[in-house]
């Protein structure tokens, strides 16, 4: 357990604090781990009161929007932040679980390939999206934002499941390669912008649909119950999302155009 003593005076890189990396370390060793990126040389002991034993679960009591890279590269175990997180939470995680009981900054779940990242509040831009220069975003795992996500959520997504339950900004699923993006609540302008393959599932019409998406009419497939059941069994939704009368838009025909936006009936 890491209890935050006071709001950090600078951005911190929390990536050394994962169950795997801390395994076998004693408290004095942990307290010396450098988290600060400036010449202040801030270490764990300067910012947190460390208690308990290192096990499979790490808890941060108190969070901050300056907590960058929470659970970065994590492969197993659990991290829980009772508060906000900063940028790149769960960046490149491959397994395990991260729960942020608060909001997260941009690039949450960037490049994640496995595991589960759940943010109970809102997330910044590029949730699941790649960092500058990277060819692909999320390639696996489950990313859940229960609040609102910013722009370009699921940017260049390659595989996996990204679910946003409180609406999102513009260009959700931009440049998507494949995978499944679910948005409940209003999505902003032109979801699926330059989407190659992949599925964007919406519970209502977004602010606008790109003119390079073509409506293919009412969509009725045995795939609907498969995704509905999965969203419920993963604890993401409580009721089926895709109902009879779902409309399908094929696109983005400005690029490969083998993907789709499915808008559930009632939207």
């Amino acid at each position: 357990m890491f209890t935050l003593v006071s709001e950090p005076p600078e951005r911190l890189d929390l990536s050394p604090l994962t169950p795997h990396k801390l395994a076998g370390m004693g408290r004095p060793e942990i307290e010396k781990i450098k988290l600060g990126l400036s010449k202040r040389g801030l270490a764990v002991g300067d910012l947190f009161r460390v208690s308990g034993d290192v096990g499979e679960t790490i808890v941060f009591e108190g969070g901050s929007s300056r907590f960058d890279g929470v659970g970065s590269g994590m492969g197993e175990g659990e991290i829980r932040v009772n508060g906000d997180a900063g940028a790149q939470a769960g960046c490149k995680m491959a397994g395990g679980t991260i729960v942020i009981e608060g909001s997260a900054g941009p690039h949450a779940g960037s490049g994640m390939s496995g595991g589960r990242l759940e943010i109970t509040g809102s997330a910044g831009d590029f949730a699941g999206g790649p960092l500058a220069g990277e060819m692909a975003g999320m390639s696996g795992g489950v990313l859940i934002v229960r609040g609102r996500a910013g722009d370009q959520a699921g940017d260049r997504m390659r595989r996996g499941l990204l679910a946003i339950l409180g609406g999102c900004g513009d260009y959700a699923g931009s440049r998507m390669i494949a995978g499944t993006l679910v948005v409940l609540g209003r999505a902003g302008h032109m979801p699926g912008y330059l989407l190659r393959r992949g599925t964007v599932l919406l519970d209502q019409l977004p602010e606008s649909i790109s003119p390079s998406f073509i409506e293919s009419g009412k969509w009725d497939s045995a795939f609907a119950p498969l995704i509905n059941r999965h969203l419920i069994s993963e604890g993401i939704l409580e009721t089926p999302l895709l109902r009879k009368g779902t409309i399908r838009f094929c696109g983005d025909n400005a690029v490969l155009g083998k993907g789709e936006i499915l808008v559930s009936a009632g939207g």
Partner: protein
Amino acid sequence: MQSMTVNGVLIDDTFAEAFGMRATAIIVTAPTMKWALEAARSMTGFATSVIGCGCEAAIDVELPPSETPDGRPGCRILIFAVSTDELQKQLLKRVGQCVLTSPGSACFAGLEGIEPLKLGAALRYFGDGWQISKKIGDRHYWRIPVMDGEFVCEATTGLTKSAVGGGNLLFLAGSHEQALAVAEAAAETMRKIAGVILPFPGGVVRSGSKVGSKYKGMTASTNDAYAPSLRGQVESALDANVNAVLEIVIDGETSEAVAAAMAAGLRTAIELGPERGALRVSAGNYGGKLGKFQYHLKDLLP
């Protein structure tokens, strides 16, 4: 041959000799049970014997909507073959020609198994480039655009090498009516055992075979020892009061399933009694020289 009599039915002290086989299972769903059964029957129609059909296949069990992956009515189909290659070939051919083509159908894995067999992973090409791959959790599906919407087909299903084929029971009766009565009744109870199929028409085979023939090139021919009209002229296993013999052949996912089915059939024949059904129950074997599995009737008595 020693034997015992139970409820007036003579039970031969013999065994059924069965063989290790490769098997897989799929689940076929459709908008209604009627259409799921149409697809299933079409796919398993010409699949009575590996001798001439490439595989043996039939419906294992019907599944209510609550038990299928997509919540629609369906059934589980079991397919058996002598080799993995042949099983893979038969699976793709049959699903491709009979399930893919059937209105409203979807196809899912029915067995986890030890290694994957291609299903949607091969059939996807029918989509001519428009097929969609979806991974949900750790399952992989293909959605193939077709005229009535989409054919959803799981990418792979599983292979088991623990399957057993050729468990059998022979019902010897005084008349054709009595033989048919006991065979029908036994097939009905045996079908209820999970993980088992009775591949022949209605579950019953009337033309039991023996190995070899007087004709060059024929690997199997009529089982003359059990053919009542040849009673006087061959080494017959039949005595004077038997005038018709019917056989039920069992393929099972596991040896235990085959044994359970044989026990169920035996019990039914015994309960029916000699007046309404079988005078005698026996089983076919090759002296224990060909098959790895032996099911002794005396061990399966109720």
